């Protein structure tokens, strides 16, 4: 198997405060890795370090054997990393089709000509179920539809690694189920995934492996069912829940 | 002034009086930006308009100069209110839209003043007694004294209003976080209205003072707007003491620069300072919010 992503001794400090300490893990091609942890555990920081939106204070990131630690996010995008955001980031005045087409037209190199990009975008809109919204401006979509649109745009870049940040946040159970099914379908096509999920309701069925973070360190990793019942993970979640209950 | 020694006393008195006035000029802009989130690029033009109003009253209606101050103050406060109502109707992106609309307003006012007062340079010369500072051999004119006195008085009054009154508390809350202020039951639309009213009063006061210390001409406002922007970015909104310090620094740098290089480079001082500030602190004003 080929190693898609390797993270070695990754740390991040904001001033004096260490948010992430010496995180090391690897991801095989075709694997789906879920990053879990209570609020403030460092999930989002780790995610943004991988995607290049934050620069690490220490450690290295390798993507298919190439050291990409200092690459800016746009270069990672052209190199085959695609991401989505907790708050969907769409091009509001462009149509749904144009949004997805942008992913194909830019994204991972080499870039296809416009006509080919449009065909690819239409295909992906079928996959995510937005084909009937093709001509609507993206700003008119609901949260769920914007998530799907962002997902389709990310897929249109033909990513070698797809990073999904809290893709289930704020969605109804029914919508989460729909997303889970969609992810399963995409996984079947050999997609490599990194997901974060605070509530665990998407990440557990979709992931091959979970990586649990607490206070900036990996406290456990392994198959989803093992990890969510791991006492350390339960304690981490309970700890923050208890603290929240005390404050509330 | 001897040619080989630096006339420090002169630089300091000029810088201090100019700087105090700059703080007054910036205060209205800063309040309107901080509370109503509107950039008013016509700020300087409104000050110059107020100056022309005072000039017209003094020259053509024989109104004593000191009486023009409250008149201009009232007129400009009233004029600022419709501006508030107008800007309130703008859509997103609000900041940029206010910038473009007030840019248009500035252009309109410049031309209006050109029609009404022609491109000639005007100066209000009231009969005010001057004095010489003992031991410094620097003559201070009456208009300079009035300039410093009223600038500091107005700045101090706004400071007291913000920090000693209930209304001031609500205004400061709006500056810091308009959404939180709204949740706390503050009517931020009313706060914006008050900000424009206060800003208008400060503009009204600044106008006659401008007209009796510097020449009025239709495009004179651009400079005043630049100064207001510089000081607001430097100090952040609602920080009146920092604003005053910034005004003095700018006044001193300017009067020193004029002596060193001649008055033709003066415009460059303000522009270069603004660019340096923006480079040093790109989101200057916004960055203050998080503190």
């Amino acid at each position: 198997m080929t190693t898609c992503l390797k993270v070695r001794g990754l740390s991040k400090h904001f001033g004096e405060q260490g948010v992430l300490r010496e995180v090391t893990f690897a991801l095989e091609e075709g694997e789906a890795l879920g990053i879990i942890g209570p609020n403030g555990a460092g999930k989002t920081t780790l995610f943004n370090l991988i995607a290049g939106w934050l620069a690490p204070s220490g450690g290295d990131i390798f993507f298919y054997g190439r050291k990409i630690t200092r690459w800016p996010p746009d270069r990672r995008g052209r190199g085959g990393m695609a991401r989505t955001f907790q708050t969907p980031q769409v091009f509001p005045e462009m149509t749904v089709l144009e949004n997805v087409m942008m992913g194909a037209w830019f994204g991972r190199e080499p870039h296809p000509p416009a006509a080919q990009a449009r065909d690819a975008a239409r295909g992906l809109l079928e996959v995510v179920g937005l084909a009937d919204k093709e001509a609507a401006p993206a700003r008119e979509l609901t949260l769920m539809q914007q998530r799907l649109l962002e997902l389709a745009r990310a897929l249109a870049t033909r990513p070698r690694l797809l990073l999904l940040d809290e893709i289930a946040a704020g969605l109804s159970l029914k919508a989460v189920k729909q997303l889970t099914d969609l992810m399963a379908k995409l996984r079947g096509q050999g997609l490599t995934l990194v997901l974060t999920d605070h509530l665990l309701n998407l990440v557990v069925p979709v992931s091959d492996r979970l990586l649990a973070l607490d206070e900036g360190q990996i406290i456990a990793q392994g198959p989803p069912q093992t990890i969510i019942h791991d006492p350390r993970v339960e304690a981490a979640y309970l700890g923050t829940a208890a603290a929240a209950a005390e404050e509330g | 002034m001897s040619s080989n020694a630096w006339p420090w006393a002169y630089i300091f008195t000029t810088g201090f009086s100019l700087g105090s006035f700059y703080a007054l000029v910036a205060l209205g802009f800063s309040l309107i930006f901080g509370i109503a989130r509107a950039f008013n690029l016509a700020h300087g033009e409104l000050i110059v308009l107020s100056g022309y109003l005072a000039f017209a009253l003094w020259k053509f209606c024989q109104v004593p100069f000191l009486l023009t101050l409250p008149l201009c103050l009232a007129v400009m406060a009233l004029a600022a209110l419709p501006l508030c109502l107008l800007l309130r109707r703008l859509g997103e992106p609000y900041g940029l839209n206010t910038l473009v609309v007030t840019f248009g307003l500035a252009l309109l006012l410049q031309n209006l003043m050109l029609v009404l007062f022609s491109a000639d340079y005007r100066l209000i010369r009231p009969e005010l007694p001057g004095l010489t500072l003992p031991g410094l051999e620097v003559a201070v004119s009456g208009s300079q004294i009035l300039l410093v006195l009223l600038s500091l008085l107005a700045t101090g009054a706004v400071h007291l209003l913000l920090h000693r009154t209930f209304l001031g508390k609500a205004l400061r809350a709006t500056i810091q976080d308009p959404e939180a202020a709204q949740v706390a039951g503050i009517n931020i639309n009313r706060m914006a209205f008050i900000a424009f009213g206060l800003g208008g009063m400060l503009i009204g006061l600044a106008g006659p003072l401008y007209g009796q210390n510097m020449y009025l001409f239709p495009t004179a406002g651009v400079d005043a707007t630049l100064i207001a922007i510089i000081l607001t970015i430097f100090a952040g909104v609602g920080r009146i003491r920092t604003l005053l310090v910034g005004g003095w620094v700018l006044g001193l740098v300017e009067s020193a620069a004029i002596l060193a290089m001649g008055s033709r480079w003066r415009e460059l001082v303000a522009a270069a300072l603004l660019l340096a500030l923006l480079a040093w602190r790109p989101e200057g004003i916004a960055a203050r919010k998080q503190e």
Partner: protein
Amino acid sequence: MEKPHWSSIGPAAAALALAVWPLVFQDASLYLQVMGMACLYGTLALAWNLYALSGAVSLGHAAFFGLGAYGSALLSHHWQWSTVATIPLGALAGLAFGILWNLGFRRLRGVYLGLASLAAMEIPKVILDNWDSLTYGSMGMTGLSKLPVLTLGGWQVDLGFDLKAQYYLLLALVLATAVLLRQIMGSRWGWALRALRENETAAIAIGIRADRERARALLGSAYLTALCGGFYVHLLGLVEPPLVFNLHLSALPLIFSIFGGRRLFYGPVLGALILYPLEQLVFQPLFPMGHAGVYGVVIILTIFFFPQGISAWRGLK
């Protein structure tokens, strides 16, 4: 992403009308002059809009205009080069300032960029105003060489003094720039700029080089603006700092673009061709002094009532 072909018919018909009317109406020197300047301002507005495509609103494009004007004027005055060479070479001064602009303002967005651009114009202005030995300071330079006489297959075209020839030159300039903008807006680069304007975060996520694409847009915009400055001084035959570095020149391209509409390639030209003649032919006789104030009114009304510009009318229904 493709527009139906008939969307080009309107602009093409308008271009044809602009080309034909001087042949029909004789003795229209005032109109030739005004429409010629409207074409120059249309080019200026198109150039401004190239930068605006990336989402930037500049209030300081007079800096590029003035530098292009002085660049060409100085080359022609000190070396007596032909204006055919000095205009494109002099415009490099605007390009150079664009590079500085990029270095200084790279991190600025939105309102802050607008404020910085407002101040940026002062720097070249004050320097040129004070560099007496090179530029004659605030005296300026008069008697600059006019545009040359071209010989096209035995046909003499005096661009320096024949108003009709000047009009056609400026019309060609604005049409060429409009076609250029049309090509850019339909290109992959144009879409990258649009993506940056609509959502920079999303644009970066799909691999668009934000800084590079925006810098290219600015440099292109700066050079085109500087070219306009070069044409302007040689049409007039004189230059002085307040003539080419003034708020008015920064405001006009913004007003024409916003009024005409920034989203269609011909929007800025439309704005210039409507507003400039309106100001010159209708308001100037009415208000000999403050006629430029009409632009202030226009921009305020536009932002309130047609934030997308008048060319968006067609798209509404």
